[in-house]
Every structure is written in C-alpha cells, then in structure tokens.
C-alpha cells in the first residue's frame, strides 16, 4: 500500500514539476530511468520516517486526550475537538505534513539535477531540448 502510494506520489510530483517548465526542464527518461528506482526508494524511506513520526504524535496526543477527557468526565465524542491535546496533535501533524511535502519536492528535483548534470557532462543535446 505504502509502495503504491509512494509510486503515485512520485509520478504526480514529476508531473507537477514538469508543469512548471523550469529552465530546460525536459527530463530525459533514458538518463533518469536508472535513477528512478533510487528516487522511489528515497520516497519510500522518507515517507516511512514521516508516517512513523505522525503515528508517534497521534499515539502520544491520543493518550493525552484519553487521559484528559477521562479526567474531566466527558465522553471523547463530545470533547474530541475541544481538548488542548487534540489541537496540539493536529497542529504538529500539519507541520510534519509540510516538512514531508518539502522533502518530497526536493526528491523530485533530484531527477532534474541528474538530467542537468548529464547535459553538462556532454550527453547529446537532442536529449534535452530546451524549454
């Protein structure tokens, strides 16, 4: 499931970067396909790290929520979005999501850098028709 998500996310981000049409951004698949597996692995590793962090946040703040709601004697269903623990947990999750987004975008740019480096190293110009 995680692998499928990482693959879809990677394809989506590649398209996203391609749409922005940066200087010479025309990924040469002949050159980048060998690096795709490694880029995919990076997505996987970083995705797992952030999902684990988010799960830890959820567990910690979920437990705090349970303790706090039990303490004030309210059923979780009515207090679920009103406790400080939930608010903090959600806020931390959002911040982690943005860090994850930034790292994902940086991974995609690796493909661009590989293509640029290959161009500088003397790969055929036709493979990189400038935008």
């Amino acid at each position, binding site marked *: 499931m995680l692998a499928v998500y990482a693959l879809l996310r990677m394809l989506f981000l590649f398209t996203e970067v391609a749409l922005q049409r940066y200087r010479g951004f025309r990924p040469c698949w002949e050159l980048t396909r060998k690096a795709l597996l490694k880029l995919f692995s990076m997505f996987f590793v970083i995705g797992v790290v952030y999902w684990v962090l988010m799960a830890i946040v959820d567990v910690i703040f979920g437990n705090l929520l349970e303790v706090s709601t039990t303490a004030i004697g309210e059923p979780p269903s009515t207090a679920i*979005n009103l406790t400080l623990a939930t608010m903090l947990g959600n806020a931390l999750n959002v911040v982690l999501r943005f860090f994850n987004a930034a790292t994902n975008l940086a991974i995609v740019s690796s493909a661009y850098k590989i293509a640029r480096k*290959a161009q500088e190293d003397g790969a055929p110009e036709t493979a990189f028709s400038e935008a």
Partner: protein
Amino acid sequence: MDPPVAPDFHFKASLKDTFWSPFTHFSLFLRFSSIPIVATIAADFSFGLIATLVKQPFVFGLAFFVVPVMIPFNVAWTRLSVIGPGSVARRAMWSFGKSERNVLLLSIGVLVAMIACASIAAGLIKLLTKSTPGQ
C-alpha cells in the same frame, strides 16, 4: 552511437541532503510555509469544532478545501530545490501566477481522477458481490 550514461547518483548523500533540506533553508521554509500551515491548522480546528458541535463527522472533510493554499508553497519549494535559494529570495510569501494555476488544475484533475477510479472500483466490487451466488 552509445546511449548516454546516467551520472552517479549517491543514494545516501542524496537522502541525507533531501531529508535535511527544510532545515538547511529553514528561514525560507518558514517564510513560504507559515501562511499555509496556519491556514491548515485553522481549517482543521474550525471544521473539527463544527463537526463536533453539529455531530456530523463528514463536516470535518470540508477542511480538505484548504489544500489550494499549499500550492504557492509547493511552487516556491520546487523552484528552490531545482534552481536554488536565489530564485526565491525575492519571491513574496504569497504569490499565485501561471505556474500555481497549472499546478492547482493538475491537483484538481488528479483528485477527480482518483475519486472516479475509487468510485468505479467500489461499484465493481459491489456488483461482483451481488452477482456472486451465496453472498
């Protein structure tokens, strides 16, 4: 003619660089992400609160509509990753141009496609479950 050879891709070094990239350019990360982060947290909280008060959990799903505020951040961070920090040095915290519009349209397209695929899959599963004898 021999096909072009892919340059070396140092996995561990790239992974390390990528992982620390938001911290390496932390001031820029803060500049471009602060508005979207605050907007997302506010949307999560407000729609969560409304969902609790009206006791309708699906209301929380409306918080998803805050996603477009992430687009300028996505574009700015991609520019930074691809071209370098200099390319976004003078960029406003919030800007919405042609690139942002394209990325937003793409995001909407992907979302619609995903919902359509999920609906088709769910419909097929339901159909197959119904038509299978003994179910």
